[in-house]
């Protein structure tokens, strides 16, 4: 599928230990990335998200669940509520800051989970081929037949709501994508001469897979993962928006938007700001992922 993707370091370190050359290649990837303005915008957005998530208690002006019913649904800027309050009088800015945590946690852990399992399956299918390949990829085709969000939804209906289950559902829904990308990459790398050489030198399968093939698959995996963190963030928000995700009173952008939809006429700021937070963070990961792909290999099919 993605045999266009260039492995990061075509000359394997074991055959020709060429450290300085490899270093300069990495440097050029970085310098290309740093020169890409859009990618840098993406990186800044991601950095702000990380800071929000890590230092939420310091940045938030109020507790995320502190209710002030007398001041419910107040407009932005009134009474020290930067973005106004929600229907329970909770400070919207603080809830959005805390909501960053949920988005990032789900984004990172769901993609981590799906990425790990998917990569493993892709490595097995690509490396061993034959029956392994047929069984694994048929299974992945089956999973792929479900629109992504529907797969997450149906998983959530069985698993029940909650943060852990959201991660699990989105993670599982991400497995087939990773498996496909990695399998294609393995098929391309497997035929390279140095893999033959390594094998003839007596390396066993697991060493070849994890020390030689996997490192050469990393570039597309990283790009794919970055872009799909964006997808996971949207999915979490969508699940919470449907009331299937993180349960109240935990602040999640999707659930704020869900509440905001019910008070659209009275106080449109709830829906507006929570949605903008989702849009910006997704845009951030997409921009960074795009830039990363262009820096590593513009022809990469991810």
């Amino acid at each position, binding site marked *: 599928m993605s045999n266009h993707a260039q492995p990061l370091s075509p000359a394997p370190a074991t055959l020709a230990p060429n450290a300085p050359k490899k270093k300069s290649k990495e440097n050029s990837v970085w310098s290309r990335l740093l020169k890409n303005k*859009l990618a840098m915008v993406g990186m800044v957005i991601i950095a702000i998200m990380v800071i929000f998530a890590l230092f939420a208690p310091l940045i938030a002006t109020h507790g995320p669940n502190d209710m002030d019913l007398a001041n419910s649904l107040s407009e932005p800027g009134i009474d020290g509520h930067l973005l106004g309050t929600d229907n329970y009088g909770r400070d919207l800015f603080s809830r959005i800051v805390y909501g960053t945590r949920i988005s990032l946690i789900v984004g990172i852990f769901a993609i981590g989970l799906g990425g790990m399992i998917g990569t493993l399956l892709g490595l097995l299918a690509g490396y061993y081929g034959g029956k392994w*390949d*047929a069984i694994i*990829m*048929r*299974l*992945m*085709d*089956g*999973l*792929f*037949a*479900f*629109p*992504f*969000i*529907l*797969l997450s*939804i*149906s*998983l959530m*209906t*069985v*698993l*029940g709501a909650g943060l852990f289950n959201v991660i699990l559902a989105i993670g599982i829904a991400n497995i087939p994508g990773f498996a*496909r990308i990695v*399998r294609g990459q393995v098929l391309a790398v497997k035929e390279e001469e140095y893999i033959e050489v390594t094998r003839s030198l007596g390396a066993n399968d697991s060493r070849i897979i994890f020390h030689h093939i996997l490192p050469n698959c990393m570039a597309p995996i990283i790009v794919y993962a970055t872009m799909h963190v*964006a997808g996971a963030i*949207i999915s979490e*928000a*969508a699940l919470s*928006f*449907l*009331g*299937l995700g993180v349960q109240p009173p935990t602040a999640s952008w999707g659930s704020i*938007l869900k509440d*905001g*939809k019910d008070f*659209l*006429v009275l106080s*449109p700021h709830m*829906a*507006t700001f*929570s*949605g903008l937070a*989702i*849009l910006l963070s*997704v*845009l951030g990961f*997409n*921009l960074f992922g*795009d830039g990363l792909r262009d820096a590593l290999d513009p022809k990469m099919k991810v």
Partner: protein
Amino acid sequence: MLKLIFKRLFDLIPTLFVVATTVFIITRLIPGDPAAVLLGPQASPDEIAKMRETLGLNQPLYLQYVDFLGSLLQGDLGTSLGYNQPVMSLIMERFPNTLLLSACALALSLLIGIPAGIISATKQYSFWDYTVMILSLVGVSMPIFWLGVMLVLYFSVHLGWLPATGMGSLSEGFGSVVTHLILPSIALSTIPMATFARITRSSMLEVIRQDYIKTARAKGLREFFVVWKHALKNAMTPLLTVMGMQISSMLGGAVLTETIFSWPGMGRLVVDAIENRDFVVVQGTVLFIAVIFVLINLLVDILYTVVNPRVKLTNKGEG
């Protein structure tokens, strides 16, 4: 050609089998008791046990599986507990509505996305190019459920131009359906539109440098025909690949769009079923949508051969 299509349809059987099995696994094997989920947290153990009986969950797993596949073969997706109706007839009532919405959104995204991508490519680095590229970047990142809410806020609440919910009815005239269609179609078309614009641009940029484009110009063709006939048809192949994927995510996006706009389609059916914990309906609808998606992909494969004569319709079963 026809023979090949039948052959490909035949080849779909294993995929459909996997799809059905996946749905079965999701509902039966993953931790969580459908009966408990169905009844909610207040249910007593007795009630749960009774519900397990009704759902046939007390049978051995393989028997459940055989039953499940057996009824599927007869087109039976089970009976909804909430509606007390066969799931299949529930779906059939709503499927045309989802089809109408998705078709409008797809048409909208193609009619705007492709020309935008072409203009962007033929005027690379111009003001238009930057505008299209920035809009499409925002577009692919759009949470469409938020966009839907915002569209309602401005066009229905503030301006009062368009209805916020429902789909109108033909008895109120054709216009009633059309006005109800506009906002949900825009919301649903955003991501595919942006994706089509991006793909068309990059694929046109590649095609426009090819020798056969020089040949077309040397023939004395107008630039309009060079671009829209000779270049575009060559740029279609990557576009088709993406189109298959976009149609799939549109079917998913329909769930969210229909929820926001109370559009009486399959997505709305799923969400209502989730709220009523009617998991037979969820399972049946998801299965139905997956089958539709598989069929659409077959259609895309057939379209490939129309667009690109070098591609022969083959039996390319494995992923």
